[in-house]
């Protein structure tokens, strides 16, 4: 509407300029699509190549035909992996670890975030900053002292934690809880104060305010935090590599890498199938809950 008004008022020269601008715009659009296609190809080559290889037999792979094409597609790799007890054990371990870690993370971080966002107490601001700093400490800094700690703990108490899948339930929360607490503080802080004041006046306890008001209102944040905790615990590689060794205790990423790559024989068809199946749960969640996923991703670097 406004642009036509401008054209009507002005001389024909203005209209010419506008047309050239729209031509510029068309070209900018074409270039954008061109480069986006290039980048999308770059982004999707490895997963596509996983899929291509996973559909090939070992014979076809070693025949050194065109690696980008499947001449004799077969599902034998999938059948073989999904009927192998070892692979199913890895999958079960991964699923158990992830589900437990998500639960533990939520149980710790939601009440903590609520307290830090709403109930100002002595040291609460410092603690919130501390939580964020903890999130910045990488796991590669802590794996050696943690390993030694668990060895000493086992010697002292007789409870062996090393080489048991449940040791991961103790160490993974150090990766998930700080971030989840941090983004939940942000989500809780954005809830209007009037809402919980009304609840308190109506006689709700702090616990009821949390479960009846904050959790339902901050549901999108809760979903984002859950997705984050799940993907982190599903993808974690260093901790399981350090803390677990026997094949019945391994989780999926470590299991695929340590059992399928043995010696000189690389069963690439199976490795790629395993990698694709290992990547599937996060990808499926992402496909259905992309907006929550992205919300969680971008919330980490913002305050409130």
């Amino acid at each position, binding site marked *: 509407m406004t642009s036509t008004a401008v054209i009507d008022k002005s001389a024909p020269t203005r209209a010419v300029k506008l047309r050239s601008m729209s031509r510029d715009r068309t070209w900018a659009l074409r270039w954008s699509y061109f480069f986006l296609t290039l*980048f999308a190809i770059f*982004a*999707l080559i490895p997963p596509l190549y996983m899929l291509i290889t996973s559909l090939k037999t070992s014979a076809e792979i070693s025949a050194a035909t065109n690696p980008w094409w499947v001449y004799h597609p077969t599902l034998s790799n999938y059948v073989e992996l999904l009927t192998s007890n070892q692979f199913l054990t890895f999958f079960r371990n991964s699923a158990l670890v992830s589900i437990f870690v998500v639960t533990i993370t939520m149980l710790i971080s939601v009440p903590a975030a609520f307290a830090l966002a709403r109930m100002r107490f002595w040291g609460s601001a410092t603690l919130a900053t501390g939580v964020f700093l903890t999130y910045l400490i*990488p796991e590669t800094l802590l794996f050696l002292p*943690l*390993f030694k700690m668990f060895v000493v703990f086992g010697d002292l108490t007789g409870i062996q934690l090393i080489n048991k899948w449940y040791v991961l339930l103790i160490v993974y929360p150090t990766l998930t809880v700080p971030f989840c607490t941090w983004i939940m503080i942000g989500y809780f802080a954005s809830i209007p104060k009037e809402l919980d004041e009304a609840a308190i006046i109506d006689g709700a306890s702090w616990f009821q305010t949390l479960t009846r008001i904050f959790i339902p209102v901050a549901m999108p944040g809760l979903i984002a935090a859950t997705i984050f905790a799940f993907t982190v615990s599903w993808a974690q590689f260093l901790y399981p590599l350090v803390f677990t060794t026997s094949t019945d205790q391994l989780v999926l990423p470590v299991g695929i890498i340590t059992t399928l790559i043995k010696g000189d024989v690389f069963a690439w068809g199976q490795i790629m199938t395993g990698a694709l199946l290992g990547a599937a749960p*996060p990808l499926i969640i992402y496909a259905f809950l992309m907006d929550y*996923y992205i919300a969680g991703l971008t919330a980490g670097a913002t305050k409130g």
Partner: protein
Amino acid sequence: MVDVAVERKSAASAPRVRKRAGLRTALKRKSTAAFLMTLPLILLILLLVIYPAFYSLHLATLNKSMQRFVGLGNFQFLFTRETFWLVVQQSCIFAITAVIFKALIGFVVAHFVHNIPAKGQRKWRGMLLVPWVIPPAMSTLAWLWLFDPSYSAFNYLLAGIGVDRIPWTGETGWARFSVILVNIWVGAPFFMIMYLASLKSVPDQLYEAAAIDGANWWQRIWYVTLPMMRNIIAITTLFSLIVTFANFDIVRILTAGGPLDRTHIFATWAFRIGIEGGDIPLGASVSLFMIPILAIAAVFILRDINKRGNEA
């Protein structure tokens, strides 16, 4: 009548409540409840983050069998090792190059996505974020297979245009290039998403004003976009610097530090020494070298985040 009855009732129950007040009121008090709610978090941080961090300082002063105190002996030993300096050099090359390219690619791609009509953006964003979603250990396996010495699918394509086979992971220069390339592939989508979110928050009026003043596209980016995005660029870059510097999965799976320790970075070398070599104190000393750069980045991030909080 009713009022009086209520008053009487409450008056009668008042002393009883006060008598067994102790725990109940303490629980009802705000600070106690808040403390209890944060207690698991505090315990987790103290026992599994702070304590190990200091324990690792202690470990670094012990000898290999962890029975004798050697002071700074481990560090002195590291300084005499050629491999250590290689690791320092490679960690810096790896982190700085990867972060710069991730930031550049993320910035460019974010602009392209922002350029196209809003209807199609979701689809493109969805495709471009896939590398970030796949567990890095799994996608690095795909890259390892793409870089395979004898069956490399890239070399197959390059042979088509007459280029000799490239030793992707077999030669120092190429191996360093490969680990950085995979890192860029994994990390660039994160920058893209962050920059895209921040691009969308730049008010259109600013661009209109710039266009009226006759600014070309470069001036629009330099004088409008970059200043508006400065904070998010700083935070994302520093954050990625930490993560890249402390990277483990990609290097471990792609080259395991080879050829001849030329692609080792702090984390993979600490793993090689501490877990595979069984010398936990020396490995702990190696990983401690990550702290200075992490601390510097953390200080700047914290400053920027607080600034951002004040702006909002």
